[in-house]
């Protein structure tokens, strides 16, 4: 049995290059496959800027496709995957339950409602940034609602938070469905909404990258900084307080961070299920539950998983794109069931 330190080293040694390769492959495959050389040439020329003196060996179309279409899309997959996995890890720690997932505190349903509102009012057609912005605002608004419902005298019991989250999620989802049903006469909008809700990364631009990347990075860093608090909270709130954690303040920061990560992810990719549930779970089984290791490792695992899922979504049935959320559920669902069976077997020993 390898020590956890060794396992961590192996994990990163295997997955970091794997992510890089996956990103390059994902950029290379599409309506026309691009050779690696072309991709590298475009990337280098764009990044080197005025230092690039060689005559371009690629066409203007190639450049647009690599730099403006595929690269932003793949980067979005990286950040959305990482964001969801970290959010899931934080939620699992906060709720002391390995079955927790990012949407539990209402942020997911709030983001969806924000997006549906943007569709229905036509704001989403006005500018590229409108839709994701509405989704993030929706996520945070939902979280605030859940938080204030669950908090009395500055204390937020985790069980109340869970119930409030479930209630608010149900309420917001039903409002989304209501809006969808009212707009269904205009089939184009309804189609847009339904497709968006099933998750997908088509037509993602650099705006989406600039919106999600800082939020995901911030959320991951904050979660890692609060890693010891997260570990201590899992020992029980009394124990955490006894060992110096400001329990209510730590819970607040963590739940807000999880909501921000979830909001950013849903804003860019719609509802993508199971990433936040399965990835941290799998990483925990491999590398142990200590948050300092779990959080960054989940980010990496989530990024790789989603880049590959998005690649599959694009290539399984060309030219139609399968919905990303459908694919992650088709893969994540059975994976989750398998993890559950393993867990039951272990705990019944």
């Amino acid at each position, binding site marked *: 049995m390898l020590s956890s330190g060794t396992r961590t080293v192996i994990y990163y040694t295997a997955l970091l290059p794997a992510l890089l390769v996956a990103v390059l492959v994902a950029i290379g495959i599409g*309506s026309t496959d691009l050779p690696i050389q072309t991709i590298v040439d475009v990337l280098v020329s764009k990044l080197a800027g005025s230092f690039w003196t060689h005559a371009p060996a690629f066409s203007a179309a190639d450049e647009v*496709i690599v730099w403006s279409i595929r690269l932003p899309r793949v980067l979005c997959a990286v950040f959305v995957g990482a964001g969801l996995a970290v959010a899931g890890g934080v939620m699992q720690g906060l709720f002391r339950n390995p079955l927790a997932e990012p949407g539990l505190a209402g942020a997911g349903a709030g983001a969806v409602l924000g997006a549906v509102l943007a569709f229905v009012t036509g704001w989403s057609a006005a500018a590229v940034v409108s839709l994701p912005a509405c989704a993030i605002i929706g996520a945070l608004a939902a979280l605030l609602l859940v938080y204030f419902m669950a908090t009395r005298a500055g204390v937020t019991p985790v069980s109340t938070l869970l119930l409030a989250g479930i209630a608010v999620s149900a309420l917001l989802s039903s409002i989304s469905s209501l809006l969808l049903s009212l707009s269904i006469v205009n089939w184009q909008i309804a189609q847009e909404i339904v497709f968006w809700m099933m998750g997908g990364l088509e037509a993602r631009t650099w705006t989406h990258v600039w919106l999600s990347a800082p939020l995901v990075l911030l959320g991951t860093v904050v979660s890692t900084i609060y890693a010891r608090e997260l570990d201590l909270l899992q020992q029980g709130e009394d124990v955490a307080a006894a060992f110096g954690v400001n329990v209510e303040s730590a819970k607040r920061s963590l739940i807000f961070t999880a909501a921000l990560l979830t909001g950013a992810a849903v804003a860019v990719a719609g509802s993508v299920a199971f990433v936040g549930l399965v990835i941290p779970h799998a990483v925990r089984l491999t590398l142990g539950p200590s948050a300092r290791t779990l959080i960054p490792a989940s980010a990496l695992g989530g990024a790789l998983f989603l880049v590959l899922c998005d690649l599959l979504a694009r290539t399984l049935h060309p*030219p139609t794109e399968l919905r990303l959320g459908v694919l992650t559920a088709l893969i994540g669902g059975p994976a989750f069931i398998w993890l559950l069976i393993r867990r039951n077997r272990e705990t019944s020993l």
Partner: protein
Amino acid sequence: MAWPRVVQDFDQVQVRLAAPTKRVVSQYWSIDEFLYTVLSPQSIVGVSESAYLPRISNVYEQAQQQKPVIATDPERVLRQNPDLIVASSSARADFTALVRSTDVPIYRLATMFTTLDQIADTIGLTGYLTGQDARAERKRQRFLQAVEAARKAKPAGVRSPRILGFGGRYSYGSQTLFHDIATTLGAINVGAEGGLVGYDSVSTEQILRWDPEWIIVGAEEGKQDQLRARLLEDPAIGLTQAARNGRILVYDQRVFLPMSPFTTRILQVLAKDLYAQ
């Protein structure tokens, strides 16, 4: 033409029509438009919900005249004592099954048209079902004349323009009405050329590769400029010939693309825009 008439609908069901209709109900937006073309508004007692949406419907004014009921609720429909109901072959089966258990004739009509000739034939069929044979025939002839005019629109010696119909995420391949329209006008449907069959999804990347000379889209009234701006912003579409030469045509969605007799409008405007000298 003798009465009663017995016809077979899309479901192979025999439908018996006793007499020319005085109270007909339409269950689908394009069927609304066929009926209003062939009948006067008094005879139409039920329409689809789209008829009352001015941004989508070509028969909004007519619907406003007599205010027929919206034909989603079977109870309200039957209260109108219709003598004929025309539903779409792609609509839900339970409404049809319910009505078939009464003695009101219901005809399921194919509405997914892929050629202009099919629309012409359906105009005739509408006349036959409703007893307005003469009037329908006149409208049918007018439709065919518009198609003929479109066929002659392309000036001699002009290269066939490469056009793409775009629906946000989808385009029109072969075996679509758009394809027939394009071919009638003497243009090349880039979607079909690229291998699309039917109405299928397409990525902006593919559009860039195909590089059409004209891109045609439909938008809600008042939102046309916004849509054009969004398309030009897209890095892939912005690089196409169509974008660079200012050849993105944004039509009102009532014009592009109804699958009804009102399709003559797109034939006229598109011919004008493609071949304007």
